[in-house]
């Protein structure tokens, strides 16, 4: 009888220890998921295209959508950039009913966002740069950058996403054209 109690106490001890361990594993796994995920937006985009290349995120361009759960009444396009190589300039001439922009860091966090009401004349012209590059640019602002929106982002790798509203199917060619004309390039300074 005594040995039975001893065995039960041992088992109880093991279960409690296991639950404590489960808590530790839970926290560890949770914090490690973002580090080791191969399914995050950056990894998906890098499989689809190179740096500084606009890639459509919606399924309309053919094939499965690169990034999931894009609003069906929206088109979206994205390019990856590396501020370590220099600042990046994104332009999209033309007018659509609504566009909005988000800048994400390497792990997919939204760092900055704005929409067409923020831009001068509703034209998308933005520069993403680090605070150090901003200091250099401020010293002598080039003529053609004066109307651009400057996004200061304290990071290196990031993703630039443009979303545009497609109210109905008659707008599809116009919005597609808007994206085809968009550019994402390394800006010399």
């Amino acid at each position, binding site marked *: 009888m005594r040995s039975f109690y001893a065995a039960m106490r041992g088992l109880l001890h093991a279960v409690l*220890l296991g639950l404590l361990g489960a808590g530790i594993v839970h926290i560890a796994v949770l914090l490690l998921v973002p580090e080791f995920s191969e399914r995050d937006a950056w990894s998906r985009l890098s499989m689809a295209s190179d740096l500084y290349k606009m890639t459509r995120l919606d399924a309309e361009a053919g094939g499965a959508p690169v990034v999931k759960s894009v609003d069906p009444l929206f088109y979206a396009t994205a390019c990856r950039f590396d501020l370590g190589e220099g600042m990046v300039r994104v332009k999209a001439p033309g007018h659509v009913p609504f566009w909005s922009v988000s800048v994400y860091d390497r792990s997919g966090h939204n760092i900055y*966002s704005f929409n067409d009401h923020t831009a001068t004349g509703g034209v998308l012209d933005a520069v993403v740069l680090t605070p150090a590059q901003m200091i250099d640019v401020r010293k002598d602002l080039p003529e053609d950058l004066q109307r651009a929106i400057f996004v200061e982002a304290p990071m290196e790798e990031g993703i630039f996403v443009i979303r545009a509203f497609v*109210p109905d199917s008659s707008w599809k060619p116009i919005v597609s054209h808007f994206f085809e004309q968009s550019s994402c390039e390394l800006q010399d300074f």
Partner: protein
Amino acid sequence: MLKTAFLTLFSLAIAIVGGGGSVWYALKVQDGVGAIRIGQWTAFPDIGTPSADPYSKARVAREGVLALGRAEGLSFVAERDAAGAELKRECTYTIEGGFPTARFWTLYAADQSLSVVETGKSRLAALQSYGVVRQADNSVIISAGHHPMPGNWLLTDGFGRMYFVLTFYDTPIASSTGLSDVSLPHIVKVGCDA
């Protein structure tokens, strides 16, 4: 000796299976940490921001989400109707009420992965605020179902679970202070195809 080894293995098994499984479960359920519930609608205003909780961060990394920014908009997801029953693709629903201030909104019927329901027709399972008929008091009545209906008709198709995704673009409610007194439309079940 054998007993000690067994107990050690037993503890380790509980720790690994319990820890891993609980993370998997926490990331799978729609209603997670950091959610804001208004009626039947759930939103994660902090998702995708650097200030998000670890659960939202893990969900973003695992699903490859690029969440809408504050200046873009805010998405609400509904998985149950006003009576608390799960939304079904074979049922007809009425979505009725006032919508908070925004430049415009979109509403679509979604499947489990929150992508739009395939209707097999040229009509999308989506509506937007520029294309809806409004009542005299500016509220909107939307009928969602398989069969054409007068007024605002949101086409759905198929069988199984369904979600409604309501997104407000360029809206003051995306800032957290604006969320306190927002009211969203009600989802009422009308009937189901047998």
